[in-house]
């Protein structure tokens, strides 16, 4: 889940590995994969990951306590937020979820263990690249562990460099894996250095067989410029989340659709690629959009109790104050309404007739734009095609199929109910691609005669 801004992380202590050591490490990881990981059945990978996940979900386990002790402060999130993220992420690393992921990606998941008969005759096998380098964004904790797990499932060794705000979970996960399955853990290394790239990043890019990069356009550009021509890249870039609220969600349900929308924005303090920045609300329902914006504001206020904001990074605060001041002037001029948490909390709702689809300042700032019909919202998304991914919806009624078709044609890769928006299932088509299929190479053996 590529996102916009590094959180205000606590200072980090980490060993500094020279380029030579990183090369040695990569040699070791490649050998571990070729000599051992490739022989490990996928079921054993699922089992080992599941054991670690269950420990992370067990309130009595020291692994969970170690994770929670550092997660919030390190990521710049409130403890309540850190806990809910750990619970949801670790749940997706459990056996049941991983098996469904495998089934969703491969009609016969055993193609990951050896040749299997293909539907067209002959046989086929799927295998991940020997050594994968994962460059995390650091804005949403847990994302880099998910990336690591995906690679292990397809029998790839992993060199992971998480972003600054996502260091705790990969380290704790790797420690847990070492305890549960030492052989498997030999195929995993987690390293940290400041910034996305730099000299260590260049060494890793040159030595990897496949690169998975999360980050902004500038990061992806940086990676592309340095990547050897033969090395494939799976890039998960910035995305602009959008919400669509149809009239049917604006009746007696208006309060609950506002609560769901607020939560979709608030989870990860809006740093997720799935997090909505703009909510298009249809006119003509029982609750008009300006009234709905007030309900949304109330929902944000309530969330500050159950799911408080993390500390506000000064750069975000600077932008936030500008947004608020501008929106207050707009309100004064009769062009919209703004609600915000004042000096108590950063959440800000800008109701903006004729507003445009644009990214906001994060930290729970959202635009509410009224539309006569949701098709206007789809038209407004046209200019943002390369950045579309998740569209959260409520109250579409019978128009769901028709709107889904319009969104698919725009390149939207996920339409989900607002309350599901923060938590795509493990088998989602991440940025439009199969999460495991994007990591494997197939080998076909065609039948003789």
């Amino acid at each position, binding site marked *: 889940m590529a996102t*916009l801004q590094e959180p205000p992380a606590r200072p980090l202590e980490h060993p500094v590995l020279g380029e030579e050591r990183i090369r040695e490490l990569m040699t070791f990881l490649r050998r571990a994969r070729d000599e051992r990981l490739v022989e490990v059945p996928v079921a054993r990978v699922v089992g080992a990951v599941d054991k670690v996940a269950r420990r992370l979900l067990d309130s009595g386990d020291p692994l969970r306590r170690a994770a929670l002790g550092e997660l919030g402060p390190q990521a710049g999130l409130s403890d309540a937020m850190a806990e809910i993220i750990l619970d949801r992420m670790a749940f997706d690393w459990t056996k049941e979820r991983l098996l469904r992921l495998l089934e969703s990606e491969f009609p016969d998941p055993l193609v990951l263990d050896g040749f299997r008969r293909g539907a067209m005759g002959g046989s086929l096998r799927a295998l991940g690249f020997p050594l994968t380098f994962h460059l995390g964004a650091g804005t949403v904790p847990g994302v880099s562990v998910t990336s690591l797990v995906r690679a292990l499932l397809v029998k790839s060794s992993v060199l992971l460099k998480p972003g600054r705000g996502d260091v705790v979970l990969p380290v704790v996960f790797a420690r847990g894996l070492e305890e549960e399955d030492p052989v498997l853990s030999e195929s995993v290394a987690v390293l940290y250095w*400041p910034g996305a790239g730099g000299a260590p990043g260049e060494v890793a890019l040159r030595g990897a067989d496949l690169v998975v990069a999360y980050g902004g356009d500038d990061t992806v550009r*940086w990676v592309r410029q340095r990547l050897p021509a033969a090395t494939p890249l799976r890039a998960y870039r910035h995305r602009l989340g959008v919400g669509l609220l149809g009239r049917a969600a604006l009746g007696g349900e208006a309060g609950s659709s506002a609560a769901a929308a607020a939560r979709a924005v608030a989870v990860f303090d809006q740093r997720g690629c799935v997090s909505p920045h703009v909510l298009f609300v249809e006119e003509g329902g029982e609750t008009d959009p300006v009234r709905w914006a007030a309900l949304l504001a109330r929902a944000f206020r309530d969330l500050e109790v159950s799911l408080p904001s993390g500390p506000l990074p*000064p750069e975000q*605060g600077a932008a936030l104050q500008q947004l*608020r001041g501008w929106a207050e002037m707009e309100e004064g001029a009769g062009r919209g309404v703004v609600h915000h948490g004042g*000096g108590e909390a950063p959440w800000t709702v800008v109701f903006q007739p004729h507003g445009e689809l644009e990214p906001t300042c994060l930290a729970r700032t959202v635009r509410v734009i009224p539309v006569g019909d949701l098709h206007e919202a789809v038209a407004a998304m046209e200019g943002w095609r390369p950045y579309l991914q998740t569209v959260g919806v409520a109250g579409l009624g019978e128009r769901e199929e028709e709107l889904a078709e319009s969104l698919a044609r725009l390149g939207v890769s996920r339409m989900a109910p607002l309350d599901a928006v923060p938590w795509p299932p493990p088998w989602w088509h991440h940025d439009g691609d199969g999460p495991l299929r994007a990591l494997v190479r197939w080998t076909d053996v065609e039948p003789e005669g």
Partner: protein
Amino acid sequence: MSFPELREELLALFARGVAEPLPEVVFNGLALRVFRFQCRENAPYRGFVARRGTDPDAVARWQDIPFLPTRAFKAAPLVSGDPAAVQRVFRTSGTTGGREARGEHHVLDLALYQASLLPNLQAHLLPEGGPMPILCLLPSPEEAPDSSLSFMMGEAVRVFGVEGLGDPTENGSAPPVGEPQGPLGGGGFFVDSNGGIQVRPFREALGGAVAGREAVLLAGTAFAFVQWLELAGKGGWEVSLPEGSRIMETGGYKGRTRALTREDLYRGLGEAFGVPAQRIVSEYGMTELLSQFYEPNLAEGADGSGQWAEAVAGRFHGGPPWVRTRILDPLTLGEMPEGEPGLLAHMDLANLGSVSGILTEDLGRRVPGGFQLVGRREGAEPRGCSLAMEDFLGPPGEGP
């Protein structure tokens, strides 16, 4: 209080120059009168103040004035007086995406701008008094009538150019700037309206300065200087400007070209122009403010020795006596503890005709004598709303 009364009072204050500190109680009294005047005359600002729950008559300390975010200049004309009497509209530079309107500073009375900028500029860039040829890597005021920076340097050339010292508060018609008035003239402007450097005229002016052996003031944006460093490096056009020459550098290249640290920029300027870092002064100003902030290194008589890095480290910006700066918590807008970084907010009395209390998007920390602008945290990227959008739109960059 009426506009003419406050104007006269402020012009008299500005005429006293920047050396004499203004007692807090005097500043406070004047600031409150200006604030109340603005609330009375400026409906959009009055609305903002009311929305922030402030009763103008109940405010007793200037610190309690609601500071208006600069972006509000994009929402409405902010005139404290008759909009028909506006003499000039200065505009902020456009955003990359061009989706958002440019900020507009409607200036009722250019005399206040002139009276504020000239003594401050003289004290920090021409402490010997002047005159001195002034070469500007900027578009001329004629080419860029809506640039407050071009206006400012046009005034500087008019008043402090070699033609001799004029009356800093004089509001006469300026002679055409950039016209030759001697070997170098009063100075000149060497960037055209679309941002390109006029290479040949600028090289000739530099050559003239070297040949004439008279010190010059070279002024420009960091963005233009970076462009010039690249050109000069390729063309082998480095010069050594005469002893006593100095450079004014002002911000404004964030996100537009490759990032250069200040140390690297100043080292480059030293190589390209032969001016040591101690004689390079950073100016910090913005379209929304009619007063400016300068580093005091030249005013305090730098001796030209020392290491480059040392010359930059520890520097700070200070404003004239008619401006006070607050450092605010990014969420609560309360005062930050001494030395901790926060949002810069300025109370600039020269903004009498618009809004004086301005909240910027810049981060800084208070130090004795002024404030230090704070760069981004290591590994963090400056991404406000518009910057986030620049990132979406893919500006040129060197990567992380």
